[in-house]
């Protein structure tokens, strides 16, 4: 589907197109199989995988906010063993061209490392997206907001794998460049920017939080300008590739990330609005690229021109 003007090699992997499905919004692929031609995409990022299964948070887990949504799923997932036994084989069998990144979470460096180590022998895993930025579990952003802890984590994971190691950053810091540089220095191959913003909704009549977990992560169109900005800041700070994510629901949105410096982009919340969005965005980007004097996606990456003051 994606024409060759969209093909790029990023983190040493071939991506036939720049659009990936974001972690937590496409399950383990299987659930969308009948609805989305997954293998035509750039790839997908699995729901977080932790060492042990996690049941997740109490309900409600989801609510709508102005221009976005809040979720506090709580990283509910089947755990490493079942992921390996039940989910990965499906992905391996069904995706030949789309790249599969596994989103990894843990409570400790050892936890993260164990998940990565446990997947090293497995085919069908193109790389890892390390989630140090989940706002809706206790300590979920610990590694994402502490430079030392982050450095230690990335260094350790670098020892565990030669596969692409992508760190997913939290938007919730004064200077994302700092954390981006730490990741780069410790050997990360790329960054994903951004995860959700912590947020909260209150049912005023009942005087209770709408979300069972009290607070959750805000995603969707409302965070688009923040995500574009943070991608631009991260891209300015490092030379490793960046996956832009946050609020994308059109090719124009995606192109903002690409011009800001993202090599690839992910779509999350918009999949719920319309599962066809991933294909639509891919097509829209392709049309845009073909209209350029130099019809090559890679030439667009980071091509934003800043007027001199």
């Amino acid at each position, binding site marked *: 589907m994606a024409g060759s003007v969209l093909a790029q090699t990023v983190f040493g992997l071939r991506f036939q197109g720049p659009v990936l499905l974001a972690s*937590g*919004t*496409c*399950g383990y692929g299987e*659930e*969308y199989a009948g*609805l989305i031609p997954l293998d035509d995409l750039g790839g997908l990022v699995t*729901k977080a995988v932790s060492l042990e299964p996690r*049941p*997740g948070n109490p*309900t*409600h*887990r*989801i*609510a*709508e906010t*102005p*221009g*976005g*949504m809040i*979720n506090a*799923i709580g990283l*509910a997932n089947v755990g490493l063993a079942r992921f390996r036994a039940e989910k990965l084989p499906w992905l391996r069998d069904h995706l030949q061209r789309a790249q599969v990144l596994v989103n990894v979470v843990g409570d400790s460096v050892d936890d993260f490392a164990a998940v990565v180590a446990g997947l090293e022998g497995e085919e069908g895993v193109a790389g890892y997206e390390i989630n140090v930025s989940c706002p809706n579990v206790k300590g979920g952003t610990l590694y994402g907001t502490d430079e030392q802890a982050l450095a230690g984590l990335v260094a350790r994971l670098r020892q565990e794998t030669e596969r692409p190691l992508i760190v997913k950053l939290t938007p919730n810091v004064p200077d994302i460049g700092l954390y981006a540089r730490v990741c780069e220095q410790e050997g990360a191959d790329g960054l994903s920017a951004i995860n959700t913003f912590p947020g909260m909704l209150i049912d005023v009549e009942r005087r209770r939080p709408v979300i069972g977990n009290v607070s959750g992560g805000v995603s*969707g*169109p409302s965070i688009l300008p923040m995500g574009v900005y943070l991608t631009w800041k991260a891209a300015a700070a490092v030379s490793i590739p960046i996956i832009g994510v946050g609020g994308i*629901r*059109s090719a124009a949105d995606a192109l903002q990330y690409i011009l800001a410096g993202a090599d690839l982009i992910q779509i999350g*919340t*918009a*999949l*719920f*609005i*319309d*599962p066809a*969005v991933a294909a*639509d965005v891919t097509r829209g980007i392709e049309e845009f690229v073909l209209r350029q004097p130099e019809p090559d996606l890679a030439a667009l990456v980071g091509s934003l021109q800043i007027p001199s003051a």
Partner: protein
Amino acid sequence: MADKQLVAEETWWIELDSPDIARASEPGQFVMVGFGCGNTGAPLLPRPFSVAWRSDAGRVGLLVREFGSGTARLARLHLGEEVLLLGPLGRPFQFGPDEPVICVAGGVGLAPFLFLVGQARRAGLDVSLLYGERDASRVFDPALIESLCGTEAEIWTEDGGAGNAGRVLEGLTPAVDTTVLGCGPTPMLHALFQFTREHDMPLQVSVEEHMGCGVGTCQGCVVRAADGSWRKSCTEGPVFNAADLDWGR
């Protein structure tokens, strides 16, 4: 959208052309109704609605009560306007051809039963319908119910303004081997669970939880099972055997 009528206070009957969904739907299944990525206003996310009717001509009927932004938007739909439909989704009500079945509907929980009773009656099954509302202004036209279902509903209103006075559960008489199907507000489902457990009647309920994807990817829509685990109401439900759920709270 092909047709829209105000059928009771804040309650709309909405018909949509969607041959694929009309063909495939079973009673208890739902559709996600959304407005696409071009829509900038609320609702951002699609909303789940039970399939309340379908026609051979490819139409799907929904019974929608205004509640918040999503249902208000549906109430403002105009003829010919397009919505995004995903479905049919979820697990339908399931029962054998020989079981007597009583459907207990609270409010717009009536929706799946309009479909179910109509279909079952045409197949000659022994299915009856109890239907409760707060007051008469919210009651869906009894004549329409009869024409959709092929049988009358026993109507209950809390103030007695239409049908019997009282809560719909008062219309339920213990009958071993009769399967009860429930759809409505959570407190009603709770009461129904107590009643059917006391009288040893099998119960299936259609639950309502906030949904994200509608297809099992996001884990937003879970309900607590009796064994303490979480079940996705969009794929493992919305219809559950009541005995499988945690009614603790």
